[in-house]
């Protein structure tokens, strides 16, 4: 199994990244601040505008290191990726399947089943751990709605009705997520999901984690040679990494939602880490961003046993493993795509 390497986050806006030999060097006002060999890295995420030298971009593409640029508040700006990797035959198969309505529906079903099952696990975990302090009836009711929707997935005939089911489930799920926030209720609450801009602290936290996850999923898909822009559930739109969004559906609850809840409930993050802008959107402070990045990196190093491979992996490798399984399915090595179910 591939080894999970580190991700370098650059949050000081004045820093400029350049290459020296096989090293990534960060300079601030032309003074060297940090240096690390490229082979220790999996990705570089820059929050700020100073940028990186073309030589460094080349070093990244040669070593298949994802280099993403985000605004200081985590809005995605762009990423550098080098020559397309992997096998043209695999990509052709991907396009053919994406064009074929029936086959994309089959795959889309897998992603959505994965998502709903994992959402249910998030709810179930809270029922088990905090059953005495939360509104059990409400959560059980939502859970039963999710089960109902889960059962109707098999019989849905086109992608529009699947989208409907997905939308309903997301609404139910985010509607009840507030119940799972046990601490710091004044600062963190969620009534519904909103974004661009997120209107409360919890939405801002979720949005930021989703951006980090998207970076990882997109890199993972590219690593196995798939085209992140051609999806099965999300339709093609210029500049939208549809396949990465597809694959994120099943990983969100486990990798992002659970982490967000833990951070709030364990007080790893607090209301001070966010502030409201004039337009009502909520963004995080520099310290808040650092806290989230630290928690995210730590979470990625946790070990789990992958239910399908039955092999011990780090949580951070999940996007890669799922991308690999998807590639295997497209190649015809396995009969169906096994979504990730957390337990």
């Amino acid at each position, binding site marked *: 199994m591939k080894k999970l390497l*580190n991700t370098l*986050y650059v949050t000081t806006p004045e820093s400029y990244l350049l290459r*020296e*030999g096989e090293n990534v060097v960060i300079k601030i006002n032309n003074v060297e601040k940090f240096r*690390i*060999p490229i082979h*220790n890295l999996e990705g570089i995420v820059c929050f700020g505008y100073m940028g990186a030298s073309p030589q460094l971009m080349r070093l990244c593409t040669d070593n298949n290191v994802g280099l993403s640029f985000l605004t200081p508040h985590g809005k995605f700006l762009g990423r550098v990726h080098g020559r397309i990797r992997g096998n043209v035959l695999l990509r052709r198969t991907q396009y053919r399947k994406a064009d074929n309505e029936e086959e994309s529906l089959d795959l889309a079903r897998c992603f959505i089943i994965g998502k709903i099952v994992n959402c249910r696990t998030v709810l179930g975990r809270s029922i088990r751990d905090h059953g005495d302090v939360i509104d059990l009836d409400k959560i059980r009711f939502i859970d039963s709605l999710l089960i109902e929707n889960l059962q109707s997935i098999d019989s849905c005939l086109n992608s529009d009705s699947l989208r409907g089911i997905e939308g309903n489930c997301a609404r139910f799920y985010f509607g009840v997520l507030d119940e799972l926030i046990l601490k710091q209720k004044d600062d963190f609450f969620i009534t519904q999901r909103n974004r661009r801009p997120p209107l409360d602290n919890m939405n801002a936290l979720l949005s930021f984690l989703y951006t980090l996850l998207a970076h990882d999923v997109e890199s993972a898909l590219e690593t196995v040679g798939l085209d992140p822009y051609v999806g099965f559930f999300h339709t093609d739109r210029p500049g939208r990494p549809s396949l990465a969004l597809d694959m994120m559906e099943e990983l969100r609850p486990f990798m992002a939602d659970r982490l967000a809840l833990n951070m709030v409930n364990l007080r790893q993050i607090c209301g001070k880490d966010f502030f409201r802008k004039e337009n009502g959107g909520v963004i995080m402070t520099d310290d808040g961003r650092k806290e989230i*990045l*630290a928690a995210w990196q730590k979470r990625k190093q946790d070990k789990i046993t992958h239910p399908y491979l039955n092999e011990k992996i780090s949580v951070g490798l999940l996007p890669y493993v799922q991308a690999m399984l998807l590639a295997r399915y497209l190649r015809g090595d396995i009969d169906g795509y096994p979504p990730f179910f957390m337990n």
Partner: protein
Amino acid sequence: MVLVTYDVSTESDGGKSRLRKVAKECVNYGQRVQNSVFECLVDPAQFAQLKHSLCNMIDEEKDSLRFYYLGKNWKNRVEHFGAKKGYDPEGLLVM
């Protein structure tokens, strides 16, 4: 994790250029923790490359080169005191 240390004799001009070369190669693979001491987090293939190129660079009559294999649990085997605290290549990297 491998610790690479070296001593390159600089009595001749050739020695100075060897020293520069060796240092440069080590920087490519790891973190300089002291003047001629490098911590390199490498996989076996990368280590083979590093070892091969370093062994070709030195003059075995005059220079010396040592590799310490610290393994996966290297964090338990390293203690640091004083200035120039390095970074943990497996830890959180936020700049």
